[in-house]
């Protein structure tokens, strides 16, 4: 069975918010109508977003590290928000594991948002329905787009390729390999929601040089002291071997 998901590399994310703006742009322009924006250029701006980038500081000055943390719906394999919905507007698609909201059935009771430990759902305060990341479901299957563009808007926008998209149930996929090889982990594993989205941890990239690697011990120039010379009158194969 397919489970589409994002894998977000915290080691690469620079916190530029390109994923946030491209997500907002794509999803505010779709068939479901615009995403709410209130006072966008005024005091106390607020609005509905599917994706937000947060920033955390780890450690104590001066030994600190800044972590930019993009946060969106994790498309849990056992989503706690789905069974609590009284109308069935919240559902998880069998074919690709995307958790979606049917905006025509949603009564805007907020109960599903209470049932999400990650705060991934945000109500659209103008349309009065619950909204959340759709993994750009209106884009990834669109055959009018070139195949390379059939990816969520955030993935395409990321300048550092910190966001990978694919099927985490396929062990050969790019995302599964990334999770496996770079120690991908889920958020709040204590609640057993089995998030499909994974995060790749910060990694220390170190290269260790030994002295003999800087100055080659087996440098033939060192060994022989001078360049070999051939007899100019001797027969040769071609120019490349005669010097």
């Amino acid at each position, binding site marked *: 069975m397919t489970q589409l998901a994002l894998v977000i590399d915290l080691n690469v994310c620079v916190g530029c918010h390109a994923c946030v703006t491209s997500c907002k742009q794509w999803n505010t322009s779709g068939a479901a109508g615009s995403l709410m924006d209130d006072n966008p250029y005024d005091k106390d701006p607020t609005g509905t977003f599917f994706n937000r980038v947060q920033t955390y500081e*780890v450690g104590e000055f001066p030994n600190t590290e800044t972590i930019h943390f993009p946060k969106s719906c994790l498309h849990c394999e056992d989503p706690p928000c789905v069974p609590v919905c009284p109308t069935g507007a919240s559902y998880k698609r069998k074919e690709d594991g995307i958790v979606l909201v049917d905006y025509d059935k949603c009564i805007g009771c907020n109960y599903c948002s209470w049932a999400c430990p990650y705060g991934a759902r945000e109500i659209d305060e103008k349309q009065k329905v619950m909204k959340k990341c759709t993994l750009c479901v209106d884009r990834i299957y669109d055959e009018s787009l070139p195949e390379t563009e059939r990816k969520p808007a955030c993935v395409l926008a990321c300048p550092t390729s910190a966001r990978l998209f694919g099927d985490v149930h396929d062990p050969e996929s790019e995302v599964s390999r990334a999770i496996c090889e770079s120690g991908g982990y889920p958020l709040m594993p204590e609640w057993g929601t089995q998030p499909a989205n994974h995060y790749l941890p910060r990694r220390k990239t170190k290269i260790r040089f030994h002295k003999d690697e800087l100055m080659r011990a087996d440098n033939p120039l060192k060994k022989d002291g001078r360049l070999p010379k051939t007899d100019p009158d001797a027969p040769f194969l071609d120019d490349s071997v005669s010097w």
Partner: protein
Amino acid sequence: MHPAFSVIFLTTLIGAGQGLFLALITAETFSHMGALAPQEYRFYSTGSLLSLGLLVAGLVASFFHLGHPERAWRSAAMWRTSWLSREVIALPAFMGLVFIYGLLHYLEWNPKVFGTTALPETNLTLMVGIIGIVLCFTLFICTGMIYACLKFLQEWHTPLTPINYTLLGMSSGFTLATAFATQYSQEMTDLFGTWAIILTLAALLTRTASLLRNKGIKHRSTLRTAIGVHHSNIRQQSQGSMGGSFNTREYFHGMSTVFFKSIQWIFLLLVFPLPLLLLGMGLSNDTTALLVLAFAVQYVGLIAERWFFFAQANHPQNLYYQTI
């Protein structure tokens, strides 16, 4: 969590309505067994009307919680998985039954349903009432379980939540029944008054138990599990928006700690000792006004109690929204 007044009024009003209905059925059962003098039909029909009024008011309040009230009928669909959906079915079912119960009494249509030497004689209204008891407790459980089933809202995820909803609702309903019964019979006032005191004391016990449980609660989620960084010193620097969002409005009560803590003491005073005192005084002096006051004081206290119930729940998503 941010306490929504629509939900506060829904749960407190239907709780009182349910408790009142249970009081009526208690009276009917007692008089059926001969422990009480039979009452005139008006007592039951007016009582049912009062109970129905509270239930309707609660239902109306609940609509203010919805973004799309016109689609509310859809919410009966997922009763297999959702406690909210179950409540949506249980509430109108119970309301319909209270209506039938009141109507049967009003029409004084009360034929014998069965009665043999083995089984005690049972009348129609008593039968309807017994079905009503089942529906009433179903509704209490559904209302409580809406909150208790959310396992990561640890303050709510305890059997004490539905127990408190049941006992507090019954307590307030029986207090109302005591004030109501003064218009009909002294005997019944004493019966309801005694039950109101017992139920209020029982509710005091279970509500205090839940307060003590929540006082030392250890939250399973921390910033470390929330972002998956295993370091003891993590601070949030930004939450991805500068003007707040749904996440900062829906999950925080937004009041000062002093206000929050004072609400706890206010409800503890208004729900338990004051109504008990007023009930005791009203019963010994036989004063209706004091008994009405007991209900009013307790109802105001229950609004504070419900506010506190919501405000106290600490949603794990708040870990992501510590600072702008």
